[in-house]
């Protein structure tokens, strides 16, 4: 490692910079007339005009001098920087050097180039080498002969699929995706109620395959499930099917390229897939919530790998889900819902909203069991072709809700044990009453999906929906 200079002038340059090439004669001139040390970032033979060049291809000196642009000219006095300029600007160079008449044949000024030590990938390595990362997590060394995937699986970090190894470089880049302090605690993750710091969440986001720009959405999703109202401990521990379903609204959807259209609930979009997976890895790794341990799910559901999608706000005639939940239009937000697999609603004949509502209602009424009422909450993912029917008829979302609550009532006598030849049911006599399938506020509608197909989806909720158990939670996505 090179010694940091103490006195005189210091120049930092690289050959791959036309402005540095331009200033090479000036540097030669300065080397003759003053005490000058030239550090070269890429090619130790550059500049040929100076004989006493110093190789800084390791970029240590550049990093310690916090060089951002080359060429940079610095004046030091007893090791202390007293002046600096960058790029080529004759007056500036003459001022810093204290020497007049520099580069008479050169143009007056030229902008410099980006320094090598701040290139992505390089800056992280330098911060690690100089122990400047501030990362608090334990370092785990994987031997050269070990397979890092196997090492991660053996430690129990994986949901069963390969992981992106969370190296310090990757975690640092991930943390660039947020302005939050890496040590800020977002909440306590059940079951062990361990603090979820931004850093720990970033590590899991790396493993899940997130890009840094996804991190604010992951943080908002974690914040949402850790809200007391969501009851994450119970959602994890229940024998039922549920896991967190993440719905993303607002500007962030398009900024990070989420899919709200064809196959919105399926595979193929990195942001949809990685954000939902990161949330599950946070529960697993920070909270210690693992299947067949505190996660007592009988079957679970495939969405417990990842279950995240965006609402198609632009195509919808209705207010987005986040606006229903009190946020401003366009404001980035996530809503989490304790839900399970998808039940399709196929209706290719209804052209009137009344008929389509009845279709939805009959499909909704069988959730869990045709004899279960009041039942769990439900999230309706309305396809564009179904939404069009309501749009053409001028129905607001509020009117659709109103109609569905009205239609989702079941005669009490159909719900008692033994009715319809089914032992399942309620013990209490309910003859003559109509029982609501859903609690007030228990239905949610979002629009998503491809342009073709009169197929919508119902995502059923947890049997413990509502204040006694889990209610959907919406949080703003903050940078």
């Amino acid at each position: 490692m090179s010694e940091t200079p103490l006195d005189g002038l210091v120049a930092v340059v690289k050959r791959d910079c036309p402005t540095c090439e331009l200033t090479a004669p000036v540097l030669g001139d300065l080397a003759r007339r003053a005490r000058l040390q030239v550090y070269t970032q890429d090619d130790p033979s550059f500049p040929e005009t100076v004989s006493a060049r110093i190789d800084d291809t390791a970029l240590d000196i550049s990093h310690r001098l916090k060089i951002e642009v080359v060429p940079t000219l610095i004046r030091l006095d007893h090791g202390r920087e007293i002046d600096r300029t960058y790029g080529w600007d004759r007056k500036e160079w003459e001022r810093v050097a204290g020497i007049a008449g520099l580069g008479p044949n050169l143009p007056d000024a030229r902008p410099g180039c980006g320094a090598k030590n701040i290139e992505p990938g390089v800056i992280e390595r330098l911060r690690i080498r100089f122990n400047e990362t501030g990362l608090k997590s334990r370092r785990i060394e994987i031997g050269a002969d070990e397979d890092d995937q196997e090492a991660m699986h053996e430690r129990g970090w994986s949901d069963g699929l390969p992981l992106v190894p969370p190296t310090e470089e990757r975690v640092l880049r991930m943390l660039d995706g947020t302005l939050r302090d890496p040590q800020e605690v977002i909440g306590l993750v059940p079951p062990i109620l361990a603090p979820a710091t931004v850093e720990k969440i970033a590590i899991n986001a790396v493993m899940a395959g997130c890009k840094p720009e996804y991190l604010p959405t992951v943080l908002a999703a974690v914040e949402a499930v850790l809200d007391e109202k969501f009851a994450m401990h119970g959602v994890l521990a229940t024998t039922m099917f549920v896991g967190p379903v993440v719905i993303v609204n607002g500007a962030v959807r398009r900024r990070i390229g989420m899919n709200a259209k064809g196959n919105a609930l399926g595979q193929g979009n990195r942001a949809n897939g990685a954000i939902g997976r990161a949330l599950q890895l946070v529960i697993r790794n920070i909270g210690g919530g693992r299947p067949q341990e505190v996660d007592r799910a009988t079957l679970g559901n495939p969405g417990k790998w990842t279950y995240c999608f965006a609402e198609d706000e632009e195509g919808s005639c209705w207010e987005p889900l986040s606006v229903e939940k009190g946020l401003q239009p366009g404001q980035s937000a996530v809503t989490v819902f304790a839900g399970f697999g998808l039940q399709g609603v196929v209706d290719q004949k209804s052209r009137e909203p009344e008929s389509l509502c009845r279709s939805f209602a009959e499909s909704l009424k069988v959730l869990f069991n045709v004899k279960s009422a009041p039942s769990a909450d439900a999230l309706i993912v309305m396809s564009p072709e179904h939404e069009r029917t309501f749009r053409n008829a001028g129905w607001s979302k509020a009117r659709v809700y109103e109609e569905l609550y009205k239609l989702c009532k079941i005669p009490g006598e159909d719900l008692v044990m033994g009715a319809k030849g089914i032992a399942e049911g309620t013990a209490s006599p309910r003859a003559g009453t109509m029982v609501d399938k859903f609690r007030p506020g228990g239905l949610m509608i979002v629009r998503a999906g491809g342009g073709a197909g009169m197929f919508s989806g119902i995502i059923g909720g947890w049997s413990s929906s509502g204040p006694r158990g889990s209610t959907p939670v919406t949080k703003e996505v903050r940078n």
Partner: protein
Amino acid sequence: MTVLLDPTSEHAPTIRPRLPRPDKLDGLTIGILDIAKARGDVFLKRLGERLGERGIAYRHYAKPTNTRPAPLPLQQQIATEVNLVIEGLSD
């Protein structure tokens, strides 16, 4: 060599051994905890009656909801008032 950052909480939860089972129930007070699962109260009420018939002291407790861990004050109350606990886990 690759250096990875630990994605876990780095906490090692304390594993405490269960108390030994008592040889007999005479002289002990039993807590009966209803975790608020359907019909758990019916089963546990009957259990209390049977314990009473055998002259065994018992106290009933109830969680407000089965969806969340028992509130800490309830856990502490049970720990100070009884010698062992029976709880109905599911419906």
